[in-house]
């Protein structure tokens, strides 16, 4: 998927969506998802025109639960090929286990989860309605544990957008895991979070600039 990177041409011609105040439901969806089935049901009822506003509730093992087989109107919309991005994230043993998406109006997470009762984890998956934005449609699926911790968040739909043509996205960066001197001659600059780097990044950059100037 492409996160529709900033594109000046699109910006110049895009619809002005902000002239429409986002509905309250759109703003509160994340809280609703955390709130559980009752909240999701409210959301679904609030979006009667959204065919994808179905609730898929399932449980899965591990701390990361991606349900690859949830269906929406019979078509597979969850990408099962998503790579496991980290070496420390537990595998998802439930990958490939079929779960039929249930309609929000008639199904609670409890009943849906029961269909996968063998799972040891208590992460349940909730799917939000499809939202439209100038940046494209977006639909989110989140797995939430009984304690309210987010196990995983997955974008089920996201828009495709133009990339900046001067960027070669295939050129994967090379990560050098070794610590090094901040004054290393090979470093062009330093990226850091503001709170650790107020002053530091700026002063270091100034040093680097001066040293190389």
């Amino acid at each position, binding site marked *: *998927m*492409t*996160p529709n*990177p*900033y594109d000046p041409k699109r910006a110049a011609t895009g619809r002005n*969506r*902000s*002239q429409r105040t986002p509905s309250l439901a759109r703003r*509160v*969806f*994340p*809280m609703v998802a955390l709130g559980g089935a009752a909240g999701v049901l409210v959301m679904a009822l609030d979006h009667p025109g959204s065919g994808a506003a179905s609730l898929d509730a399932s449980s899965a093992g591990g701390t990361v639960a991606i349900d690859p087989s949830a269906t929406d109107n019979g078509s597979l919309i969850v990408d099962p090929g*998503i*790579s*496991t*991005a*980290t*070496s*420390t994230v537990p595998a998802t043993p439930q990958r490939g286990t079929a779960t039929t998406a249930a309609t929000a109006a008639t199904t609670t997470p409890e009943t849906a989860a029961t269909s996968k009762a063998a799972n040891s984890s208590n992460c349940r998956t909730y799917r939000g309605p499809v939202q439209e*934005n*100038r*940046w494209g449609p977006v639909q*989110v699926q*989140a797995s939430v544990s009984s*304690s*309210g*911790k*987010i*196990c*995983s*968040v*997955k*974008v089920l739909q996201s828009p495709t957008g133009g*990339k*900046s043509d*001067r*960027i070669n*996205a295939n*050129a*994967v*960066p090379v*990560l*050098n895991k*070794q*610590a090094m001197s901040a004054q290393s001659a090979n*470093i*062009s600059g*330093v*990226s*850091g*979070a*503001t*709170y*650790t*780097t107020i002053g*530091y*990044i700026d002063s270091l*950059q100034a040093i680097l*600039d001066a040293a*190389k100037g």
Partner: protein
Amino acid sequence: MQPRANSHGSPVRRARHVMGTTASIHVHDAAPQELVERAIDEVLVELDRLEAMFSTYREDSEISRVNRGVLHLGDCSREVTEVLDACTWLEQASNGAFDIRPQGLEGPIDPAGFVKGWAAERASAALARCGLEHWYVSVGGDIIVSGSPASGERWRIGIANPIRPGEIIASLDVEGGAVATSGTAERGAHLWDARSGAAAEEFASVTVSGPSLAWADAFATTVFVMGEAGIEWVSQFDGYHAVAIRPDGTLLASAALG
């Protein structure tokens, strides 16, 4: 890598205070000094213009006027509309991990988590418009690069050690694109307090690289709030990779980064 027509020359560097931090611009093209200086001027002018538009520290900025209720969202500039739309998109795509209303629905908007990277990316486009190909722009540690620092080389971006200020804990060699880092200060999600704050303490900082600085910056904030699940979340977006630093100083990186 795309073919580059411009050859490399002696770098021209300039730094200036803007947006409450330092913008540092390096141009490595073999180009007339006058052209390079004018291009850098354009970048800085645009950063100033965008700061005046978005700063919550300025009473007359559009964001401040929206928050005071004297400017309607529908009457905002194209730039503000674009940023708020993008923030809304990401709020939904991240299930609320990214949030520009830290005090709740009725509270003020603060799109700072998106603006710095977005503004740096937008302003740096002036360099390309002037025909420059090999350049580096950093606005407070949010970095976008084009081309290469020298023939056959990649830009090497250090990642600040969030635990031991002054040290570089790792580095990323990039051909072009963006590197942005977020930490505690960028955390703005009231929503996630409901999660015992556990996820937000998983990492000391998160660095995201990718094609667009606007999104790399916003994704870094998002992954920081999401915690470990965010590493996988961000990998869904083409060309975006994350390097997280845990409080004990160990690294957790997207699989593609090895």
